[in-house]
């Protein structure tokens, strides 16, 4: 396999060695995942948001796709990359997590789920498989008090036994069950093998735009309302500029009680609201009296209307004998 770096050896390396990227065909732009998804941790839990446009070689294949897939009651995954791959691997992950829960009597932590997904994707490294997911979940410790069934009851007794055994044979470096921290957690897993723990991630072609909004506004102390509005704004900004993101926004909020989904919101509304605000701002009429002080300001919907109003005010003021009235329409159209 020829390569362009002068440091490369002259013998050909096996095909499975991706030197610069895992794609064999050069991409037109660095981000190949046509989407905008984001997730962040704050004091109220984890918030995940994504757009709903599914694109396929330059056309919108589906304007109402679902990019945030629930995996179990306390874990949600955002998907980016190839839709089919993401949907399949999320289902496989859900199956494996459920099996783990039945066998061990407790939910696997988000970090463990991320590790599991990463290991399952590892044999496909170097192929066309493309999955970039953020796993957003709430680790509840060993037992979920609300949902104990008979199976879990007996499994949890086994767990107690196993825990005591584990503690008694502890050797340096061995990890025991009780070391998980409970609370919100967020992991980014990619099919190229990356697995990162963090507090804020955005994935996809629209992620630079989303990052700019999120880096500005996300802090630990946000209220749920503020966090939702920041997430919505970030997705909106990304869809505004990125051709591969658009249509609606999905928002999921994960707390200790599980995930809740907000109604899907059409960003078209947001776009038109903003357009109206912009047009309202730019059409202000300043009417000054002869001493140069502005005593009236009006906003107007249409340029023509505001100009007509200007003329009316001027003529009226002339009639009344007020001198030095200056009427300007500062519309930028």
């Amino acid at each position, binding site marked *: 396999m020829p390569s362009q*770096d002068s440091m490369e050896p002259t013998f050909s390396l096996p095909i499975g060695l991706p*030197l610069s990227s895992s794609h064999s065909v050069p991409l037109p732009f660095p981000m190949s995942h046509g989407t905008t998804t984001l997730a962040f941790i704050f004091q109220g839990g984890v918030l995940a948001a994504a757009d709903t446009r599914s694109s396929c070689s330059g056309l919108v294949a589906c304007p109402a796709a679902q990019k945030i897939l629930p995996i179990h009651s306390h874990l949600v995954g955002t998907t980016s990359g190839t839709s089919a791959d993401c949907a399949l691997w999320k289902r496989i992950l859900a199956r494996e997590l459920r099996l783990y829960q039945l066998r061990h009597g407790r939910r696997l932590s988000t970090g463990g789920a991320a590790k599991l997904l990463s290991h399952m994707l*590892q044999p496909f490294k170097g192929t066309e498989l493309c999955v970039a997911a953020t796993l957003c979940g709430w680790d509840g410790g060993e037992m979920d008090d609300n949902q104990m069934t008979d199976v879990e009851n007996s499994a949890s007794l086994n767990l107690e036994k196993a825990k005591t055994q584990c503690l008694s044979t502890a050797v340096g470096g*061995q990890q025991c069950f009780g070391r998980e921290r409970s609370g919100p957690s967020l992991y980014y897993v*990619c099919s190229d*093998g*990356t697995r990162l723990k*963090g507090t804020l991630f955005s994935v996809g072609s629209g992620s630079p735009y989303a990052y700019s909004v999120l880096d500005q506004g996300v802090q630990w102390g946000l209220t749920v309302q503020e966090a939702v509005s920041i997430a919505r704004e970030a997705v909106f900004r990304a869809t505004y500029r990125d051709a591969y993101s658009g249509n609606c926004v999905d928002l999921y909020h994960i707390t200790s009680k599980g995930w809740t989904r907000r109604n899907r919101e059409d960003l078209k509304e947001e776009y038109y609201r903003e357009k109206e605000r912009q047009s309202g701002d730019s059409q202000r009429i300043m009417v000054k009296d002869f001493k140069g002080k502005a005593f009236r300001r009006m906003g107007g919907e249409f340029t023509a209307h505001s100009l007509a109003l200007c003329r009316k005010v001027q003529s009226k003021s002339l009639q009344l004998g007020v001198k030095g009235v200056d009427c300007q329409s500062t519309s930028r159209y």
Partner: protein
Amino acid sequence: MEYLIGIQGPDFVLVAADNVAASSIIQMKHDYDKMFKLSEKILLLCVGEAGDTVQFAEYIQKNVQLYKMRNGYELSPAAAANFTRKNLADYLRSRTPYHVNLLLAGYDEADGPGLYYMDYLSALAKAPFAAHGYGLNRRFILNLPSFNVRLIDREGIHDLEKLTLGAK
């Protein structure tokens, strides 16, 4: 561009690694730790291809810990370095080579401090100072705002103050 550097002193080894975890042009994390603790006095620094680094480094880490569990004493840095190199060489000649560049730094009671340089073609060299930068000329040059710095000496591994270059 990722960066690793190691310097061996008379009775210590000093190592530093940058903190950036990048995906294409975006920095996904600013506080990513590229050092893996193999044992009380051995650190493995690992850069290279995205998933390969963590996969390979954790594989070596767990195997070194397994050796200690089985035998009751730890591998020396020289032995750990040769073990790592052997694994890298074996995988290189398979269908799934690991594209990782490594620095292994350790302190041995008998031999003193040691710094080992390894690259993805499983070359191994014990050197007084060494560095790795991921330098294919197609890469974007990323700013590296901060570095983790650690020191290994007779007492073990010590965290030193993080280096932050430029305005935070």
